[in-house]
């Protein structure tokens, strides 16, 4: 005897309608693996790659936003649609509200906010992004901000490249970074 999906859907929707959910998550299959997408009341708060264990990821969100976390594809339909449109190439803007609650410093938050202005098809170097937020010598700190970005893909840290060439590091692994850049037609030669 198991709980039916429809019961789980009804429960999650009732929780959201009553304002009881600190966050809602969904699992979304994509060409780069199944993503875990977590959304709080203010926006997308965490995106996890397939290689990140869901339990640990949700525990991280619970520590930041609260433990009332529910799962619902239905409640996150708009977010799923935006990500699906991105991966299908029909709309790569990913204009989703983002919640930076899990970002640990104002500097990193500034860097990630600025990064949102780098659209699909564009790339920027760590040094250039540092200049844009008026910390021209902080390229390494920008690297850390990207490495700890809780909302990859939506906040496009894959578009930040080392000045020395190559694609550099990526939370999801360099291969996924290359695939995202290739998908956007921005893979450096």
């Amino acid at each position: 005897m198991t709980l039916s999906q429809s019961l789980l859907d009804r429960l999650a929707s009732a929780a959201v309608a009553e304002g009881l959910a600190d966050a809602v998550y969904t699992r979304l299959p994509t060409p780069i693996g199944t993503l875990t997408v977590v959304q709080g009341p203010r926006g997308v708060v965490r995106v996890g790659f397939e290689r990140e264990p869901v339990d640990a990821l949700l525990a991280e969100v619970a520590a930041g936003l609260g433990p009332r976390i529910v799962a619902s594809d239905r409640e996150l339909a708009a977010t799923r649609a935006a990500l699906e449109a991105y991966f299908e190439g029909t709309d790569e803007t990913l204009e989703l509200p983002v919640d930076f609650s899990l970002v640990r410093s104002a500097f990193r938050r500034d860097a990630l906010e600025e990064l949102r202005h780098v659209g699909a098809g564009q790339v920027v170097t760590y040094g250039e992004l540092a200049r844009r937020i008026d910390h021209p010598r902080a390229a390494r700190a920008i690297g850390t901000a990207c490495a700890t970005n809780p909302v990859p893909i939506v906040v496009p840290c894959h578009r930040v490249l080392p000045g020395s060439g190559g694609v550099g590091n990526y939370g999801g692994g360099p291969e996924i970074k290359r695939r995202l850049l290739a998908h956007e037609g921005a893979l450096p030669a």
Partner: protein
Amino acid sequence: MRTIVLPPFWSLVEAHGDELLVHARRLAGDAHGEDVVQEALLRALRAYPRLRHADHLRAWLYRITTTTAMDHHRRRAREVLTDDPPAAAAEPDHYDDAFEELIAGLPDTAQAALRLRFVDDLDYAGVAHALGISPEAARQRVSTAIRALRAQGVAA
């Protein structure tokens, strides 16, 4: 102030949802089990941030499910009185009906203790967790309830 770490609520639903459904169906009947579980989990979610510790979360969920099933019984009892007695009374539940009939005259707290002990087959520690009382109090509550049944001439 002590910071407590509660697990993400949905991990509890995934870990215990199925057994709570079994529990709810035993207490409220197969036809009402899903409604009871849904309402119980919603109640649990409302109370979740106010928990003062993260121990015994499974027993806590059982307790809420038990209470919700009892409320459900009461609601249905009222409906039987006011709406459509023959249809509701003729509803083909299962063998638990006999048990429910047996304990119907006891106070709610005694009924809950008996269901946990004999329907859910919990030991006294389990009954105690589910009711939020000490194991000794659980043992006492069950034995008092059994004495009451004996006095009614329904238990050996």
